[in-house]
């Protein structure tokens, strides 16, 4: 199964190197997980002060600075891992140095996700952005818990207006979208952090916000306006919110 690890760090507390305890420890984790065939994609993000948010209520885009939610911990990076089950995914997350400085939300992708194909390196003149697709998931979650017998994975329809609109959006984005997929609902997330050196696992996402990350896409665009145009056209931008985060080169 494929899982997303969302690294969440209090960026005010560690302004110099917000994402991990040490570059060496990070590199060791990456090398090990690549060797084991666990790590499929991942990147560190520029700090949240470089985030831009777009909403498109009624179809007209509204661009604002900052993240989709003003939480203490903010998304600082992500990894896509392939593990046989949740326990092994949690073990992979617990071994990541981010747990020294913040927390890691582990959430499975919705079924059917193909392997991410991310070309290296970034072509000249292009920038990569992580596009976090966020929506108010409370209704979907309430509906799911009231129909407890139906525990199948939510598809994009839970979030989007319909798969056709997403398909149209993907076609419009063209080569500017490298890949992307929907996640399981936030109530199915597990968050790993360390308290006094010990790994602590809690259910739920890293922050209890009204809007939650429902999925993401990796974009490769000419500049921010190009990326905003792609993001504003996403069907979720109409009722939810999209956060664009530039990746470190």
């Amino acid at each position, binding site marked *: 199964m494929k899982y997303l690890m969302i690294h969440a760090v209090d960026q005010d507390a560690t302004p110099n190197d917000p994402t991990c305890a040490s570059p060496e420890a990070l590199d060791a984790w990456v090398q090990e997980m690549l060797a084991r065939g666990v790590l499929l994609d991942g990147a560190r993000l520029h700090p949240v*002060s*470089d985030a*831009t948010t777009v909403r498109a209520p009624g179809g007209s885009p509204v661009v604002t*600075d*900052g993240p989709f939610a003003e939480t203490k911990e903010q998304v600082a990076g992500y990894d896509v891992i392939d593990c046989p089950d949740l326990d092994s995914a949690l073990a992979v997350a617990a071994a990541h140095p981010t747990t020294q400085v913040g927390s890691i939300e582990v959430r499975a992708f919705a079924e059917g996700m193909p392997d991410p194909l991310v070309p290296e390196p970034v072509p000249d003149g292009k*920038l990569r952005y992580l596009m976090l697709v966020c929506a108010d998931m409370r209704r979907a979650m309430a509906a799911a818990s009231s129909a407890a017998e139906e525990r199948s994975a939510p598809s994009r329809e839970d979030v989007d207006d319909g798969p056709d609109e997403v398909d149209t959006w993907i076609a419009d984005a063209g080569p500017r979208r490298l890949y992307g997929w929907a996640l399981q609902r936030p109530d199915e997330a597990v968050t790993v952090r360390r308290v006094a050196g010990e790994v602590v696992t809690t259910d739920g996402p890293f922050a209890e916000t009204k809007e939650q990350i429902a999925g993401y896409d990796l974009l490769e*665009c000419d500049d*921010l*306006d190009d990326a905003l145009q792609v993001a504003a056209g996403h069907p979720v931008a109409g009722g939810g919110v999209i956060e664009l985060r530039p990746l470190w*080169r």
Partner: protein
Amino acid sequence: MTTRAEDAVALSFEQSWGRLLAGLIGWCGDWDLAEECAQEAYAAAVVAWDRDGVPGAPLAWLSTVARNQARDRMRRRTTEDAKLDLAHADATDEVAALDAEDIPDERLRLIFTCCHPALPMPARVALTLRTLCGLTPAEIARAFLVTEPTMEKRLVRARAKIKHAGIPYRVPAPELWAERVEGVLGVLYLMFNEGYAASSGDSVLRVDVSAEAIRLTRSLADLLPGEEEVRALLALMVLTDARRPARVRDGRVVPLGEQDRTLWDGDAIAEGAALLASQDQPWGPYAVQARISLCHDVAARPEDTDWEAIGHLYTRLAPTPVTELNRAVAVSMTHGPAAALAMVEDLGDDLAGYYLHAATKADLEAKLGRVDDAAESLRVAIDLAPTGAERRLLRERLDALLSGS
């Protein structure tokens, strides 16, 4: 005493800083490098112009010196990251001396980038004042009552975001044009208003941010001759600024109705009126606000004010609570305080916490002879007033009300 060369450098700084920097950023793609080299070019000019005389084309001279500086610095850079900055500028080429006509005016690119909606509003204002107006971080910090390190950090973060997030350095595409022009005007108007509010005398050390906003809007009107709202905003600023000489007396803000109108700047009023005269309907929001301002400016005495026209103009603005509050003032002059008070009371929920709502309510209650209610409203307004000057004014009104004068 300043020398002729120093005067020429100062004049060139005032006239050309923004243009020089805009061109340098376009050439080298690196905001920090461009700013450092622009500064050094002016420092070099102080010496060279004194020694060799002021060049015939100062901007071309400054650009050549700054580009040579930038080229030297880029050569010394070793990291891969820094080499990427050479995208537009080949570090191995000698920079040929530039002629005046070789320098296109790239300030539009600069202003659209500084006012990009992905930047926080305070950063947009600060970056615009720094890069286009040439104010130092210390001056901007004083203007907005923050410490210099705070302002430095704000500017550093903004420049980092432009680089990391890939905010483009260009005039926006047609589909973004209207929205982005509106964004730029919003930044300029905010800059003007903050500068204007600050001119109430709490600090004599402050640079005149509203004058900078007017200067920049004037330049923008030249750069975008087809944009009527740019000229309308310029008119609004000029017509508001015309009343500035009468706005503060003995350290206190004087309300419009009590100002010495002979102090108003007649030339500025004439300029604002001329800017508006050539505008076609339908008017944008700045054009409507400018016309409201003009109605006040052309009234020789408060009782000559055309409140009918003002009330009508307010209906042409988007009906926000603040617009409605202002319209209520006009309605009180044409239809009496009772009609206006009903409007103001309806706005109570929306404008709770806004001192001018309480102050306006107090005025209307006083006119209706409801002294106790008026006093209570004034006390609310005093608690909510943002600056000392406004609180003083409200306290005086309260004292006058209670002493029955």
